[in-house]
């Protein structure tokens, strides 16, 4: 099996390499004949990669310790699903998964459109195959998933207990799917640059992939935060750790890219920015891999040292350099067709948001690299803490929130009409009144006041915009008009729905980070305390033995004053194989906030020691994330009519259906 797997991997390497070469060469009219063989060899590389995946998966399921990889991540008592998840826990496995995803996506990309293959699509496909070949090369030369164990182990080292969590079953593959998908907008942008074809064809093709990649990467980041929150047991969900930052940076750039694509399509401006963002987003996906695997960082997760990281850094630098040169050479073709005529227009908001997102991404990148940068520049290693990031997140976040809030009542290319201006004033009043309301209600922190005000303003703007839009489409009754305008402008309102999710996310982040409080407490059996508006009683202390671990838990009853009590059981697990304790927290969650409980251990007099954390508004964060995902899904849902309307009409008119000029 091992030898066969090794052969398959080598075969996939050669096939994908040939496919990349033949596809790119086949773009030239003289070498059309190569196209078919390119397609066959790319299909072959996908089949071979699938075989390697299957071999490794079977080895993990049957716990075949001849595979070094299996011996390293599996053990006898590990449940089969965690055994399978080891496929993406280790380095070699995750590279394999990434390459496999990329192979599949490239095939879908190649065959998704019914249109005959054009040079743009073909070049992009060639670049995707080149990327697949790169990923397989890293496995062949540096991290072989098919490596043979030294000796014949009878028991594996086992999966780290911290990674035995449901979120870890799906978080890594989702992140890698996101990284793989970002390759497609990049490939299209680069193909357009090479082809010198700067109409909106490439954007039309890149849009669904960018949305997909954005949503998938976002979901991955959200799951990672969820895992950190539930498993790491320190009461928070985001630590500005290099691993987290690594996936956040491409997501921020990707968000900007999705918006600048629209300004290109609607107004013919920000073209260089759009192309640069497409390349940068993909480059930063590779950079994230460098961060986690180069070993230049000592963070909680990124501790390892391997040559893989440097390969990815090299790829990133090549991309940045080649992209920069290409954009410079095509600067004339990429010149803007229009000017931004009004600061109160959608393109102005996109420009502002792009600046804010870029700043945030740059600062995150600088902070992540602070140790390496300070060492290189001043010879002392310096790390920066969360205040560095948070200080930047606050103003840029407020700027992005404001721009996002305004968007529904603004237009592409002109100032708002009179009714829109009136609605803006009404919404602003709502926002200001809300701010005054919560100040009277006792809020003191400027961020809390500002965010609440902006969110109220944003919701008002969205409702007003819906009302104006529905009024422009007279039907039998108001609801029918509303449905009609939602249907006709589905993509736009799906976008605004994503924005709503963003507002909920902002509430969750601000609420939980400003209002969080901790309390360390020792409780005796039967004792009740009152804390953070809840009453908490220790009911029982329990011990259990499972095949692979010992479990000690405290059973507590928690109720908000006057409510039905809820049972919570924070635990400590002793994993026998690793002889390692892990904390299993218990969380009681409702719309006003989370009570997060960490059990530390027993006291000498028979009680328990706990840390209680109150995280207000945490649910809003998850709600926001899910809303954003849902919005993106709606936006991605195939809609032939809308696609025709959006792309085949001159940009100036696509904002409103024909014959329905502003009311």
């Amino acid at each position, binding site marked *: 099996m091992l030898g066969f797997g090794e052969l398959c991997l080598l075969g996939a390497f050669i096939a994908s390499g040939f496919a990349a070469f033949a596809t790119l060469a086949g773009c030239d009219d003289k070498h059309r004949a190569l196209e078919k063989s390119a397609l066959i060899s790319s299909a072959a590389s996908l089949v071979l990669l699938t075989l390697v995946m299957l071999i490794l998966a079977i080895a993990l399921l049957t716990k075949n310790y001849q595979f070094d990889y299996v011996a390293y991540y599996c053990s006898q008592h590990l449940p089969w699903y965690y055994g399978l998840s080891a496929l993406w826990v280790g380095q070699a496995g995750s590279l394999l998964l990434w390459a496999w995803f990329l192979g599949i996506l490239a095939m879908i990309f190649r065959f998704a459109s019914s249109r005959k293959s054009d040079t743009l699509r073909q070049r992009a496909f060639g670049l995707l195959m080149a990327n697949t070949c790169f990923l397989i090369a890293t496995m062949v030369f540096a*991290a072989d998933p098919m490596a043979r164990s030294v000796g014949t182990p009878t028991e594996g080292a086992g999966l780290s207990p911290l*990674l035995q969590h449901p979120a870890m079953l799906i978080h890594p593959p989702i992140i890698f799917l996101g990284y793989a998908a970002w390759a497609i907008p990049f490939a299209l942008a680069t193909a357009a640059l090479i082809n010198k074809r700067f109409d909106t064809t490439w954007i039309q093709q890149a849009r669904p992939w960018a949305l997909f990649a954005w949503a998938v990467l976002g979901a991955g980041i959200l799951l990672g935060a969820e895992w950190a929150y539930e498993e790491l047991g320190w009461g928070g969900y985001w630590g500005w750790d290099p691993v987290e930052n690594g996936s956040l940076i491409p997501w921020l750039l990707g968000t900007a890219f999705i918006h600048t694509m629209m300004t290109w399509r609607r107004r013919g401006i920000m073209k260089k920015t759009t192309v640069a963002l497409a390349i940068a987003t993909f480059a930063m996906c590779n950079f994230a891999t460098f961060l986690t695997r180069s070993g230049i960082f000592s963070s909680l*997760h990124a501790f390892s*040292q391997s040559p893989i990281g440097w390969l990815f850094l090299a790829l990133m630098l090549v991309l940045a350099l080649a992209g920069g040169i290409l954009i410079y050479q095509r600067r004339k073709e990429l010149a803007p067709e229009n000017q931004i005529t009004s600061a109160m227009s959608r393109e102005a908001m996109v420009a*502002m948001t792009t600046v804010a997102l870029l700043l945030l991404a740059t600062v995150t990148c600088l*902070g992540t690299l602070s140790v390496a940068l300070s060492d290189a520049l001043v010879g002392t290693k310096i790390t*920066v*803490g969360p205040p*560095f990031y948070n200080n930047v997140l606050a103003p840029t976040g407020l700027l992005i929130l404001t721009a996002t809030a305004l968007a529904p009542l603004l237009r592409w290319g002109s100032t708002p009409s009179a009714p829109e201006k009136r609605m803006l004033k009404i919404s602003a009043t709502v926002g200001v009144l809300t701010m005054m309301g919560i100040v009277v209600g006792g809020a003191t922190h400027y961020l809390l006041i500002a965010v609440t005000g902006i969110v109220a303003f944003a919701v008002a703007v969205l409702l007003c915009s819906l009302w104006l839009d529905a009024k422009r489409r007279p039907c039998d009754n108001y609801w029918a008009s509303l449905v009609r305008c939602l249907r006709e402008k589905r993509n736009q309102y799906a976008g605004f729905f994503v924005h709503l999710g963003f507002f909920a996310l902002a509430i969750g982040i601000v609420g939980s980070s400003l209002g969080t409080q901790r309390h360390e407490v020792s409780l005796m059996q039967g004792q009740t305390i009152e804390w953070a508006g809840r009453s908490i009683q220790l009911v029982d202390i329990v011990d259990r033995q499972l095949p692979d671990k010992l479990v000690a838990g405290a059973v507590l009853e928690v109720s908000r004053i006057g409510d039905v009590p809820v049972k919570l059981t924070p635990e400590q697990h002793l994993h026998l194989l690793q002889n390692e*304790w892990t904390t299993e927290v218990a969380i009681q969650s409702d719309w006003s906030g989370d009570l997060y409980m960490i059990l530390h251990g027993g006291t000498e007099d028979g009680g328990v020691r706990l840390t209680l954390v109150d995280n207000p508004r945490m649910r809003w964060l998850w709600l926001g994330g899910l809303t954003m995902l849902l919005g993106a899904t709606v936006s991605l849902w195939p809609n032939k009519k809308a696609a025709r309307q959006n792309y085949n009409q001159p940009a100036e008119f696509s904002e409103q259906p024909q014959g329905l000029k502003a009311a």
Partner: protein
Amino acid sequence: MTATQRLFLGGVVITFATMALAYLGASSSWQFYLTVDELAADAASFRESRVRISGKVARDSLQIAPDRSQASFVLQGETAKLNVQYTGLIPDNLAEGIEVVVEGRLEDTGLVRGNKVLTRCASKYSSNG
């Protein structure tokens, strides 16, 4: 002034303001990142500053208070040693012989007063994986 110019000016202002805020945030939170040996070699210049030190918890040195709110241990480098007095949440897997990162302040006496201990998260991407 055209809209483009206004936006450009706005962008410049925002960029500088953000960078200034980032600097303020960094200056209130930065730490010197050192190994035990690097710190011991140049202890005088790091006195009373925030440090983040990586090293190994020495054998037979770890003492954890019964209520697990405090711990003291010797942090060992290649050659040098450092006494650490730590107050705060103690990680589950803090033990003798493991690699840790301690954040805190270096006192005049040469003692490190720690307020955060990070233990190596069990290999996620280990070099031989």
